[in-house]
């Protein structure tokens, strides 16, 4: 606003914003790179008038005014152009003259980003930094008690099973008598996704897929990628790389007719089918791909016309109960590949998760259960859903696993956990913690975006404008001017680096436990926490 203008209730000053631009007149070259790169036009050139009062010593002459004009970088204060703290200005500044800094007190913008009665929406992650998973320690270190392994020296088979494992007597019977046995995939315990083509830019998506193919074919690591809801490019469906892909089906069913059309031409079966019922970032809420993002490419892959809104409702329309949801969908999806492909549902972690799990245990075609906790990421959600809805992943994984133990099926139906794994950078530690709580593997998205493409998002409200298509790194944008900033090859390379280092770190955790031939799934005696309540709730050691 003009400093002398009229104020309105929502008139804000720089001090009221979450991010403040610190700019140095002395260092600034006025090169224009910061204003050219700013994704939200939070800054622009400012014209400033300066005044110097000239007074002759001794007051021998009448004092005078000297006005001058200088140009500098000015931060805008209207909500639509509030700085998001991405820091791209710092990145492009040749002189280190500009950088966003976080307000030292809670901002006032939060009270005003509901103009027109529309609550705030954003992408990214929860604005909560705490992670219970980070607090879990691995306390059972084998040294002299039983042979400790050396992560560097010993060969590890860090693999997990995705699929329904028959109890031994049943397996023997099937083996003897013949007949159908459920499909099982031996995969790497880290699954990437689910992130759709559309939520991610073409370069990001291709980079990740290329990296996954590389990990499989060059490094011998069976890492899998879940597509998210948005279909799958026709070429990928018809390639051998399909076996590295978990195809997701969700309430919008986007791209599924294209997948069906590709069935006769598939060289390989997909790894699995994930039926999405919910996600951790916005449990119980649907999504909407805005019409302006539905360009020719997205439209072709999703099998829709261009320029239309694409809603994914909160629920699948033809499901009326858990029984139905589970039985009907799993059966249909299994049938598409003649029961050769594992099919499992993914739900938001919820206090009702166990009901779903119990149901799955009674369904012979259910291959697994995936749960996404409150810390899950998203391309777009209401602030309220992101920050305040959902169930923490740790306790629900534990409950689910112990429930399986109670009915003796803990080795029969794997649990996959996601939502905030690695939210503070501790990917392997969080993964290992979840595995020891009972997960057979983890699903990870945000960490991958940060590590492979330099996503700037944070739990302190930095950037997270995934929802408006202006991702400054080109990760979640459909605009070539942004997504061409991202080189798919470099993304692929970073994915390989990331998974390799994750692999080493995970080995560094499980080797001292003496595990090398199987993952320590549910090995809860190996973990502890310095919080008595958490220890009690999770059934793990209380260690101080």
């Amino acid at each position, binding site marked *: 606003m003009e400093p002398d203008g009229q104020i309105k209730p929502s008139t804000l000053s720089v001090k009221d914003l979450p991010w403040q631009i610190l700019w140095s007149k002395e260092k600034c070259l006025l090169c*224009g790179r910061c204003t050219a790169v700013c994704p939200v036009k939070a800054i622009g*050139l400012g014209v400033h008038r300066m005044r110097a009062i000239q007074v002759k010593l001794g007051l021998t002459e009448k004092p005078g005014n000297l006005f001058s004009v200088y140009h500098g970088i000015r931060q805008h204060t209207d909500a639509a152009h509030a700085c998001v703290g991405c820091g791209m200005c710092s990145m492009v500044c040749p002189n280190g003259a500009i950088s966003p800094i976080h307000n030292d007190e809670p901002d006032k913008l939060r009270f005003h980003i509901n103009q027109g009665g529309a609550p705030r929406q954003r992408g990214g992650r929860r604005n909560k930094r705490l992670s219970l998973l980070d607090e879990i320690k691995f306390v059972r270190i084998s040294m002299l008690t039983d042979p400790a392994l050396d992560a560097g020296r010993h060969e590890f088979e860090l693999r997990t099973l995705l699929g329904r494992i028959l109890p031994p007597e049943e397996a023997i019977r099937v083996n003897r008598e013949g007949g159908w046995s459920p499909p099982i995939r031996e995969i790497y315990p880290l699954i990437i996704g689910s992130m759709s083509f559309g939520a991610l830019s073409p370069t990001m998506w291709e980079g990740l897929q290329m990296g996954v193919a590389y990990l499989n074919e060059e490094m011998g690591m069976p890492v899998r990628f879940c597509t998210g809801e948005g279909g799958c490019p026709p*070429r990928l469906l018809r390639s051998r790389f399909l076996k590295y892909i978990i195809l997701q089906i969700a309430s919008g069913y986007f791209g599924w007719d294209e997948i069906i059309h590709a069935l006769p031409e598939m060289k390989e079966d997909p790894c699995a089918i994930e039926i999405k019922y919910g996600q951790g970032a916005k449990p119980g809420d649907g999504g909407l791909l805005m019409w302006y993002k539905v360009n020719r490419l997205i439209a072709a892959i999703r099998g829709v016309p261009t320029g239309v809104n694409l809603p994914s409702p909160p629920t699948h329309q033809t499901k009326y109960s858990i029984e139905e949801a589970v039985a009907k969908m799993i059966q249909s999806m299994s049938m598409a590949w003649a029961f050769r492909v594992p099919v499992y549902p993914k739900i938001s972690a919820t206090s009702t998760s166990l009901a779903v799990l119990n149901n799955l245990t009674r369904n012979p075609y259910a291959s697994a259960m995936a749960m996404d906790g409150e810390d899950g990421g998203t391309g777009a959600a209401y602030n309220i859903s992101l920050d305040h809805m959902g169930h923490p992943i740790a306790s629900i994984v534990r409950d689910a696993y112990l429930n399986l133990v109670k009915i003796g099926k803990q080795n029969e139906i794997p649990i996959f956990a996601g939502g905030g794994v690695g939210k503070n950078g501790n990917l392997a530690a969080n993964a290992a913690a979840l595995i020891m709580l009972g997960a057979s593997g983890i699903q990870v998205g945000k960490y991958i975006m940060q590590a492979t493409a330099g996503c700037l998002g944070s739990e302190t409200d930095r950037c997270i404008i995934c929802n408006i298509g202006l991702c400054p790194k080109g990760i979640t944008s459909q605009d070539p001017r942004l997504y061409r900033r991202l080189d798919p090859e470099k993304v692929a390379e970073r994915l390989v680096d990331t998974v390799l280092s994750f692999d080493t770190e995970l080995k560094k955790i499980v080797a001292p436990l003496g595990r090398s031939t199987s993952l320590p799934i549910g090995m809860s005696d190996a973990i502890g926490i310095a919080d008595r309540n958490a220890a009690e709730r999770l059934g793990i050691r209380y260690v101080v």
Partner: protein
Amino acid sequence: MSSKPTTIIPGSEKGVRVDSRLLEERIQNAVKDGHRQIEIIAQGQHGIGGRLWRSGEKPVFLSILGTPGQRVGGMGFPNTVIDVVGPVSDDVGWLNAGAKIIVRGHATNGAGNAMAQGKIYIAGNIGARGMTMTKHNPRFDPPELWVLGTAGDSFAEFMAGGVAVICGLGSKSDDNVLGYRPCVGMVGGKIFFRGHQQGYSENNAHLTVLDDDDWRWLTSQMKLFLEAVGRMELLSQLTADRDAWRILVAIKPYKKASPLRRDISSFHVDVWDRELGKGGLIGDLTDQDRSPIRLIATAAMRRFIPEWENEKYLPPCQAHCPTGIPAQQRWKLIRQGHTQEAVDLALRYTPFPATVCGYLCPNLCMQNCTRQKADLPAIDMKLLGRASLNAALPIPALPTGHKIAIIGGGPSGLSIAWQLLMKGHAPVIYEMRTELGGKITETIPRSRIPDDVLNHELKRLEEQIPHKHLKHPLTEEEFRSIYEKVDVVVIAAGARKPRVIPLPGHERAVAAIDFLRESRRDQAKVGKAVVVIGAGNVGCDAAAEAFRLGADSVTLIDIQEPASFGVERKHAEAAGAKFLWPRFTKAITKSAVELTSGEVLPADTVIMAVGDKPDLSFLSEEIRIENGFIAVNDNFQSSDPRVFAVGDAVRLGLLTEAIGAGRVAARSIDNLLRGREETIDQLPQIDPERVHLEYHDPRTPAFTDTETCAAGCASCGACRDCGLCETLCPQNAIARRPLEDEAYEYVVDADRCIGCGFCANACPCGIWRLTENDPLE
């Protein structure tokens, strides 16, 4: 052993095993006692033969019979030679610091573990983890481990120095002579081996062949080894074929820096694109180039592009002038030194530039001057208006012969007549009064406009425009006869019929319009106390005049907050008028105005100023009338296409509005007469936020001359050609391009422009606009 022992130390006494601690003590004592040829009959004792430093420079020979325990020769000294007549248990030569240890049988796990100097000669096979964690201290020769047979699994783990020779004797063709996964973590040293080996840690070790030096060393040292273990008969077999031997050496750390991975680009081309097709994942769906671009991009890859929108928007002064005078353009002419042109320009828009712009107009141009948003004084249009008194007459278009009758010689009638005249038509004014000018000459107080100014401009009009003074109100017959004789009739009869509120005693009140008409001729009379009902601008004029004519007090009442403003209000207030509202009149008595509130305002004279309406009694019923005014379309055309109407006969308004209506109507009449169709689109007004006022001196006092006005004009939306954008553009992408005559434009070199928006944010006049670049699919 070369000679007979000088002492024999038994490992058991009376059938009881000697504790390792005691055996060690006895061996140490034997050495201390000078024995240098010692035979030990071992029975599982630990660490036999190590730490014999007491032997000093004279070597000590140990012959071990029986079954030694683990770590034979552990921490062995260079002066020690140990000969084990049979196999050994784990960790033979553990942490060996120089002893030579000969084993005439197999060794179990851990042979040579952590040794740093000395030699271990094994005449058989070794178990797992042989030669692990060995070192080479540069102060000494490297340690050596010689194995006649094969090594077990995990051989040479973390080997950091020394030499191992694995002769592979007795191995089958598909045995691994170095066991499973040797060399994990190996960082130094060298392993000679003979025979088959499937797999080793390729991250750590490098497989190669023997060069001449290696071969020379191997063959010479082989002799010593075989001699020591008494198997010289094997020499020829083991040294027969150099090609049967290979070497594993540690990879140098600096060569390890990059992991052995396929280059991702080659994977992209040779694997990814080969399987998916050209263009990869979505090559079949789009032609969009997806190759990487720079973060700061130019041309088509810029996110934003600047546009030079010169004169694409009206400045607020012009946009708000009902007459449509291009005020800003006039200031520009003055800046360019064309002052006379700037003055002359006025007459193209109004016949009253001095009278109205200079005196009577509330100057909406100034009220909307952009400068005021930064508290700068508005550019003073009155100065330029007054300067227009001597404007030169525009040259009219060639005569068309079209006749237009204009009923009424007030501001709107004169304006339309003036405009039609300029367009070459022949207007005739019919005026019932004896002088032209309408309200200007009839009711506006003299104090508001100097006579000489008004007369000058009236004279200019009278000389140019034929007019007939009817001296009586127009009749219906007269109107019809005029209508038949001309091409177009324009009704500009004004609103001369005062509105009257039918209050009790209303006949006692005088209508403001009548009062002002009389007062202008100094023929009005007022009492001491005057009440004006209706506190609008006309009421204010009446109040000021009442004071001039001798009133002591004037009270203006209104039913709401008075709508009066500007000079009229100021004059009335300055004269001492009181304003009361909301007040509702109940009745007018002989000496007072009674209000519904019970209040009684003494009044010798009551003036009713509640508006006027047109007298349209001369019109036939064909012309549509709405609420007492003539109904017209946007072009001021009435329901009869040949009849136009402007001014107060259409709606009450300001002088400038009447004059502006005349201009617009004249243009549509001209179009009608010439059979031309034209839609009159006015440019939108510029957003004042685009204009930057920081370039102006905030302390400028009120304007006193047209030159400072011209200099201070922000030139909203019209380029001042200051060249700031050209200078400021960090990419040097903006250039001034001269066009024909004195015209110019500023252009952007797209290949240089990065879309920073500096031009748009800095432009003093708001010409540059930054827009989003066209979307790319």
